[in-house]
């Protein structure tokens, strides 16, 4: 009886984690921008991903930059942007264990520089180091602002901000704003 209750509690906790908007948005990014960019005819496991503990190529934005971003997306809520800036004053809050079926390895800045070591440690890796930011939301929590970037070694990489909006319980990317390119 006790075991059954424990299992039910764990299942509930799992459902709660998965239903968090942060996880839904991160999953959408991984599906739309990472897994769709898989290499043809290759043997690696596209479900093994490496994520930086902190997005080193993302500029630290300032709240007074809102107007420039608003110019790029008129519907961007100032609250969303400010929430994003505030939440990214601290390190990435990303639960890599909550993605079933995707093996996510977190690395720090120093580890990310040693490509040879990463290839030898993770031979089934897709060859890209991913960057994610904390996600900013508006008051109604139906608009989100997040940064995604990747690097596959010198000469290959880039970063974008994505504005997501929630419609009928589903988060959809509404606007992509380029952050950097190489």
């Amino acid at each position, binding site marked *: 009886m006790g075991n059954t209750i424990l299992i039910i509690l764990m299942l509930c906790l799992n459902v709660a984690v998965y239903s968090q908007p942060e996880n839904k948005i991160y999953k959408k990014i991984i599906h739309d921008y990472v897994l769709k960019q*898989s290499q043809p005819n290759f043997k690696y496991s596209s479900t093994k991903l490496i994520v930086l503990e902190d997005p080193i190529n993302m500029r630290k934005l300032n709240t007074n930059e809102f107007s420039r971003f608003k110019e790029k997306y008129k519907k961007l809520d100032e609250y969303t942007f400010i929430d994003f800036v505030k939440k990214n004053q601290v390190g990435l809050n990303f639960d890599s264990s909550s993605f079933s079926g995707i093996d996510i390895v977190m690395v720090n800045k120093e580890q990310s520089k040693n490509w040879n070591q990463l290839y030898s440690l993770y031979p089934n890796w897709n060859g890209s180091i991913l960057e994610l930011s904390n996600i900013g939301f508006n008051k109604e929590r139906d608009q989100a602002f997040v940064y995604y970037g990747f690097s*596959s070694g*010198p000469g290959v990489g880039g970063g974008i901000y994505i504005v997501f909006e929630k419609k009928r319980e589903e988060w959809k990317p509404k606007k992509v704003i*380029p952050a950097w390119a*190489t």
Partner: protein
Amino acid sequence: MYDPQIGRFTTVDAFAEKYISMTPYQYGANNPILFIDVNGDSLNVAQLRDYDANANNALTSDLQSKSGLTLTTDENGNVTYAKDAKGKALISRDENGKKIGSRAARNALTKIINSETTISVGGTDGLTGVTMDGPNPNLILFNPEQTQSTMNNTSSDLNKTTDGYALTFFHEVGHTGYGGAGQDPPFVPGQNAYETAGRQEILPNRIRRQLGSEYGQRTTYNSYPVQSGQQNYFPWSQKSLRQLKAGIVPTQTYIIQPWGK
């Protein structure tokens, strides 16, 4: 305006203040062939010159070689090109009288220098690229070590500068605000970076075609890992792309991605 009857220019040079030792009417020091008029400040390399003078010289030299233009950088870092008496760009010729460089490179570079937007070039120890969300979306940052490593890792059948300073410059221009803030394939819906080089390589590949077969063609944006990930290769032809897709080390026309440390 240059008056051939009197051998003088009859209108004030807009940048006459840069030549304080001359009268405002001495366009190009009254010698339109040997001297270069300041057309504007639309390409500025001051930041790169201050960061790494050798890298800046390499960029200028490579841009001259690829375009056939004669470039001059003033003390403020503004780059201009030599013109003839009619204001047309002077183009260097080889010993057979044939114009050197690529017409596409020449057109793109003169357009940049004559534009109203200022493209600035600087240096970085990070990735070569453009910060598109920053206060200056027209600033290109070069990592000289990255460019040098790329040239060193270019297969022997290709010209070492096929992804050197000039061709990289033209790629990066596509990322600037001036160039339309273009995105590379990983961020373009429907494009796979292992299948296409993307919009930013349209101009560089055209320039390569005009320069000759030893420049190859960049065929993908991403590099391919082979040999259990010991090396990553950029295919620089359809043949090397086919080999890489089959997991084979390409025999020629490739660039090994310089991982660095």
